């Protein structure tokens, strides 16, 4: 398209060099391009038809098909131990609408990494990495969302059998929303209030088998299923989960930081802030994910605005690109700036997180509270402004933005999911406010 080519000729910089800034180095940017080129040669990893034309079941089937091919061929395309390469591969092949193992990679494995003891990691983490089991992270409940203190699921320790008895006493206690919980996962890291000898020790995490490993049928005592279609993200089978006095061994309590001995003795974590680390980790990475989705929408809208000609600024001149209108520029360019700002702020936050993790290992937790508060605010502001930006991008495309051919409504739906998952935005802002007031 000559109009778009003309746009590219006016640039004052090299886009590969800019990509290196965006992705944290020339090597990373080059690897992304190599992965993209490699994928172009593997038709089994391409969408077999446009996703918007598929039903939810067809999309899930298509995604599982590609996931299987990916599992077989991943190591010839990327270094599977490199999280950045894996993220890019997933975006290209599986896309943003989710996949049957979306939570396995971003929540289940990190939870086992952070909270399982060495022996527990040897037992479960290796199997999870080999994809012999599929897992998720089940914290949120129907009645109280992610409000940890008011979760209703209980894990009561039975000293006689050395088992925890998991129970959801009423409908509101059902785990509700966890991704891939409904139909795909056969294990979950479950958060429940732990009771020993009648005393509540607060929320703790347990490794819980949900389905028979051979038949994939739910185990006795487990009620499980999909919660139904959502605004977007419909390849993910967000699920519900109930326990009817369901028993798991004592050793299924994740014991890297806390322990319960056979006689019911409770050993508490070395410092309370340790539990912040998983939340800070996810929220730090969320920022760059949001930046990517904002730039998806802006890419679509800005390119289209350079192709679309409508109306005249000067009556003696031909129709102009809609990108020439100041209103269109004002609608899009500040969000281009925000996308870059979010990407850079996200990268800085990830670095800060890595520094805090190192310092925590040597017992210094001072920066964790600072960062925990900041990431609460960042997650909230960035998801909100990303949603605003995507919506502006959609409207900048006129009527065609409303068509699924633009794909913007799916991007919008997925991005604004972030306003509520990992902590609802208002609650997150109040968490940061508490810290500011203390300061």
């Amino acid at each position, binding site marked *: 398209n000559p109009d778009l080519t003309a*746009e590219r000729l006016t640039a004052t910089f090299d886009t590969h*060099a800019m990509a290196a800034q965006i992705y944290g180095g020339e090597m990373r940017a080059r690897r992304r391009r190599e992965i993209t080129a490699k994928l172009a040669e593997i038709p089994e990893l391409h969408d077999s038809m446009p996703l918007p034309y598929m039903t939810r079941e067809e999309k899930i089937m298509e995604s599982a098909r590609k996931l299987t091919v990916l599992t077989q061929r991943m190591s010839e395309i990327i270094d599977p131990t490199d999280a950045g390469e894996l993220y890019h591969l997933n975006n*290209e092949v599986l896309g943003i609408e989710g996949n049957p193992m979306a939570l396995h990679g971003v929540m289940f494995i990190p939870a086992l990494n952070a909270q399982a003891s060495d022996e527990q990691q040897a037992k479960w983490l290796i199997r999870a990495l080999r994809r012999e089991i599929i897992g998720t992270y089940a914290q949120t409940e129907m009645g109280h969302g992610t409000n940890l203190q008011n979760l209703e699921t209980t894990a009561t320790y039975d000293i006689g059998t050395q088992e925890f008895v998991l129970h959801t006493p009423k409908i509101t206690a059902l785990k509700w929303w966890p991704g891939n919980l409904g139909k795909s996962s056969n294990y979950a890291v479950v958060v429940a209030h732990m009771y020993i000898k009648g005393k509540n020790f607060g929320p703790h995490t347990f490794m819980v088998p949900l389905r028979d490993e051979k038949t994939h049928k739910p185990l006795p005592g487990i009620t499980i299923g999909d919660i139904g279609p959502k605004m977007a993200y419909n390849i993910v089978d967000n699920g519900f989960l109930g326990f009817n006095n369901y028993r798991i061994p004592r050793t299924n309590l994740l014991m890297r930081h806390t322990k319960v001995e056979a006689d019911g003795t409770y050993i508490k974590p070395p410092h309370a802030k340790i539990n912040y680390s998983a939340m800070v980790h996810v929220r730090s990475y969320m920022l760059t994910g949001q930046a990517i989705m904002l730039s998806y929408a802006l890419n679509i809208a800005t*390119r289209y605005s350079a192709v679309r000609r409508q109306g005249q600024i000067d009556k003696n001149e031909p129709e102009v690109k809609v990108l020439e209108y100041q209103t269109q520029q004002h609608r899009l360019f500040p969000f281009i700036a925000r996308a870059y700002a979010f990407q850079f702020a996200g990268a*800085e936050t990830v670095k800060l997180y890595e520094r805090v993790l190192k310092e925590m290992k040597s017992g210094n937790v001072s920066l964790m509270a600072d960062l925990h508060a900041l990431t609460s605010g960042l997650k909230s502001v960035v998801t909100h402004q990303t949603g605003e930006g995507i919506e502006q991008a959609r409207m900048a495309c006129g009527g065609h933005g409303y068509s699924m*051919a633009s794909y913007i409504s799916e991007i919008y739906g997925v991005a604004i999911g972030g306003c509520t998952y990992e902590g609802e935005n208002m609650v997150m802002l109040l968490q940061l406010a508490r810290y*500011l007031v203390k300061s």
Partner: protein
Amino acid sequence: AALVKSGKASQLGPLVAYLGARSEPTSLIDRVPNGGITEYIKTFQHIAKRQTLKAANKFFGLMENGEKREIAWNKSSVELNRASRLHTRLFIVEAFARRVNEIGDITIKEALSDLLHLHVNYELLDVATYALEDGFMSSTQLDYVRDQLYFYLQKIRPNAVSLLDSWEFSDRELRSVLGRRDGHVYENLFKWAKESPLNKTDVLPSVDTYLKPMMEK
């Protein structure tokens, strides 16, 4: 706020240190030569700090007047959330500025610097009320900010498509007919429409089953 009020600003964490720092009586945007981004950052710090102290004062004041802590918190929560937003937006601006400052490549630095200027002007206009209400900024300074915004919109215009190309998303990843890299939008929109499952047949079963009988009655 509590640490600042009790004179213990030295105990503030690094990300909230600005709460204990002194600020100029008024913003120096457009008031000093080569002030640039620094004066914008100082302005964001001023309004974030002021809002935090204001929200905290409301909260502490309600408690001093006998409200229970939880009730006082709830009655202050909109102002508190405003403080949180300003704190967060300040961090984003600072992180953006730090990053641009680190870049060596001149053409990249200039393009990103233009974006950074657009960002700070747009952000400041969005939160200008906070800077105007205590006279930290004047309406003439605000006009300057507005002019700067329009200047940078125009300056960025030739780079707009390339700033987005730089994210290097393939068409496979974008999954958008409208956002195709080659710009061949209209012919592909038509191709896409023809793939609609509704176009597999000329007459839909819903017409045969319901609409035709209704029209024939």
